[in-house]
């Protein structure tokens, strides 16, 4: 677990909704927080190096770019092989997220891989490639297409 000080927390609160689109965004944030630009850049660099910041980047809107089909493919993979196969599925260039998760009484699947495409047909082709890769280690699978985005705000930490 990483210890964050109050200044880190203020910096996170000031940037988690995004960076200002101005020539010197870190100087703008510094002015708002009573810090120097160098302090802001240094702290953000340290947070990045520690993994608190995963990346500083843009997030494209998949839908706007034509990736309108979005399926959460789920796989019931033999436990002993799940980690090794998860690495292989995650390495496929069209898989955007891949996780091993626990099963539940109403849920038999332990491997999750997000598949995106311009159409469901394209997503199904990708799903077939994952199925071929998993082979006999996979006992069952399903895919859950999203039908509606109910909320998307990203991470918001409460104060304190």
């Amino acid at each position, binding site marked *: 677990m*990483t210890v*964050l000080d109050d200044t880190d927390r203020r910096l*996170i609160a000031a940037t*988690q909704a*995004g*960076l200002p*689109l101005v*020539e010197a*965004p*870190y100087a703008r944030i510094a002015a708002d927080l009573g810090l120097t*630009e160098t302090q802001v*850049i240094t702290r*953000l660099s340290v*947070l*990045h190096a520690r*993994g*608190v*910041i*995963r*990346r*500083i*980047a*843009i*997030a*494209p*809107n998949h*839908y*706007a*770019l*034509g990736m309108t089909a979005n399926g*959460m493919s789920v796989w019931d993979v033999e436990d002993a092989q799940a*980690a090794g196969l*998860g*690495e292989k599925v*995650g*390495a496929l*260039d069209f898989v*955007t997220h*891949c*996780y*091993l*998760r626990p099963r*539940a009484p*109403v*849920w038999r699947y332990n491997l999750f891989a997000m598949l*995106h495409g311009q159409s469901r047909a394209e997503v199904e082709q990708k799903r077939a490639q994952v199925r071929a890769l998993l082979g006999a280690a996979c006992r069952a699978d*399903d895919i*859950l*297409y*999203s*039908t*509606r*985005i*109910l*909320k*998307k705000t*990203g*991470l*918001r*930490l409460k104060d304190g």
Partner: protein
Amino acid sequence: MSRQTLPPEALDDTDRAILNSLQEGFPLTPRPFDDAGAALGLTGAELIGRLERLRAIGAITRFGPFYDAAAMGGAFCLCALSAPQADFDRIADLVNAHPEVAHNYARDHALNMWFVLATATPEAIAETAGQIEAETGLTVWRFPKLREFFIGFRVAA
């Protein structure tokens, strides 16, 4: 966030180059737009103008640091519940009212509502899930990640 696909002519080659390049990362330098723009043949002011437009037309959803809740001492957890169709929107409102719910999707399955909790402490995952169960009368199934495999963030624009 819009789910409309932009017409192909909404983005030119420079826009596509920006979308592809800035998914990889953005500089931590005093004049980051100048530096990122140089690689794309743009001035900093031109890049800012392009980003303002891309945001306005909905081609990008976020721009800035992506924080890892777990690395901050907090936690993320994927959760799911089965909401009766007739009551779906009311249940969605109850779930979404929690600031800990970072995103929430309707999916076509018996478990028809899938949402991610992002909390400042690991304990708050169970607390928030418990509150949602109390408010909705529905079981909130929790699917925390046990392992994360390579994540490719990129979407070719």
